[in-house]
């Protein structure tokens, strides 16, 4: 009998503890006021938007503005004090960390996958083929088993973390043809590929949905599972960076992202949460 009572009390405490932890997620923002400016990696945007929506609905005194621009922009702007949180889809370099006294917070894992239009028959490529396509050596789909149409390469600008990871890990720092079309974000890449049957590009794995078709690289399809298990090598962390130790609203936001609710948002949007 004593044991049962003991067990009962323990379970009550456990439940109570969990409940308060659960309520604590948004309660972090109880009574807070102010503006939070976020900019940077475009892959992070869906998670940021959802988090902002919940926070702003819970507490109408808080205003959160979210801009894109790419990882380079995020790091630069948070370093210059133009925004409170700078998102990046790549780890900031040591130089950047030292220059801006950045504190990094990695809250999810993501991959970068090659994508083509769903109508495209080509669904698998070897690494060499990939490097040749992006450098412009292979320029017609028929050379790799597709239709007789020129390959339209799409790429991102230099500020993009997605591009940096892709260039380093998938292309082995190979050249990207100067004739490639430029798009400004992961979302833009997805839209461009889904509307052009002869396009090829690269995008955050979390963004891949029915409108684009992932291309297997060396036999491995870029899915979340494969990234999680380490089969798909082209992976990267999603970071939120602050200048120095975060405080106030900034700190609460970062705590929120690491909280169970925040991590749940990350996984709903297609990324692998770190917790």
């Amino acid at each position: 009998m004593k044991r049962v009572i003991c067990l009962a009390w323990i379970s009550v405490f456990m439940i109570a503890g969990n409940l308060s932890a659960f309520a604590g997620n948004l309660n972090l923002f109880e009574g807070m006021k102010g503006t939070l400016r976020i900019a940077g990696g475009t892959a992070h945007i869906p998670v940021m938007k959802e988090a902002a929506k919940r926070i702003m609905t819970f507490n109408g005194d808080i205003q959160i503005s979210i801009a894109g621009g790419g990882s380079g922009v995020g790091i630069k702007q948070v370093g210059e004090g133009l925004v409170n949180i700078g998102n990046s889809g790549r780890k900031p370099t040591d130089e950047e960390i030292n220059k801006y006294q950045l504190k990094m917070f990695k809250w999810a894992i993501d991959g970068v996958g090659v994508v083509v239009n769903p109508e495209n028959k080509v669904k698998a490529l070897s690494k060499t083929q990939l490097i040749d396509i992006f450098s412009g050596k292979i320029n017609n789909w028929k050379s790799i088993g597709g239709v007789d149409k020129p390959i339209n390469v799409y790429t991102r600008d230099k500020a993009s973390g997605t591009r940096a990871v892709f260039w380093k890990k998938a292309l082995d720092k190979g050249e990207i043809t100067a004739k490639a079309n430029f798009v400004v974000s992961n979302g833009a890449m997805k839209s461009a590929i889904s509307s052009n049957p002869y396009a090829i590009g690269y995008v955050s794995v979390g963004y891949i949905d029915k409108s684009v078709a992932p291309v297997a690289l060396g036999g491995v399809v870029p899915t979340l599972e494969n990234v999680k298990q380490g089969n798909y090598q082209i992976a990267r962390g999603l970071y939120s960076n602050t200048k120095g130790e975060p405080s106030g609203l900034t700190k609460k936001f970062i705590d929120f992202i690491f909280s169970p609710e925040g991590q749940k948002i990350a996984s709903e949007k297609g990324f692998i949460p770190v917790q």
Partner: protein
Amino acid sequence: MKLIDHSIEKFFWIAAVLSLSITVLIFGFMVILGFPLFKGGQFFELLSQPWLPDYGTYGIYHMIVGTLSIAFIGLVFAFPLSLGCSAFISVLGPKRFGQILKKTVQMMTGIPTVIYGFVGIFLLVPIIRELFEHGSGMCILSASILLAILISPTMILFFSDSFDQVPKPFLDAVDALGGNKAQKILYVILPYSLRGVITGLVLALGRAMGDTMIALMVAGNAVALPDSVLDSARTLTAHIALIIAADFESLEFKTLFACGIILYLFTTFITLSVRSFDLMPWRRK
């Protein structure tokens, strides 16, 4: 009373000087912020080199080519179209129809450029892509077509106004000699308003070179030198919009000011040439 009057008049003068100084300030900021580029004589190198950030070369030559080609090809489409339409409005078309066309053209001047870009992406680009089977459809040609539609209304109205300023006795003379409408326009109106036509053309060129959204949305923004009108290209204006997010201590960012300076100089040159034609209506007094 006198004091108030005097201060109000002083205020007018101050406002005018303020506006003038803004014009100068804009150029000044560009030059000052882009100053590091002049120091090493890099500025002129930039004008002839390609944009290869991975290799440390930040030349804007390709972007200058992009701007010029899109603007000129756009004009090639727009000029005949505008001439034809304004001839129609002023002389060659039935009066009612001409008025309807003129009203439509006036409404068109209110259409934002972003709308043209938006429709261009979803309507024009796939058509170009399928029709020519060359690139992605986002190319100089698409941008030029949309640009032509953008600048035509202003050109048409300008030409129409010039045509309307031909003195009535001349037109009556043609009628008296038994000439028809086509002869009227070819041999009397056009030669008389030649100056106005050229002015309108040059003004439209300035507008075409300065447009950002159409080029940004539809021209593809590739950094390579375009080989054909079906290649993707980047203009100076789109380049500024794309790179604005970069690190502003870097050389990369400084080149934006070089772009700004080039654009400023282009458009100032155009303004100066138009003024020298002495046909700006607001300089009548």
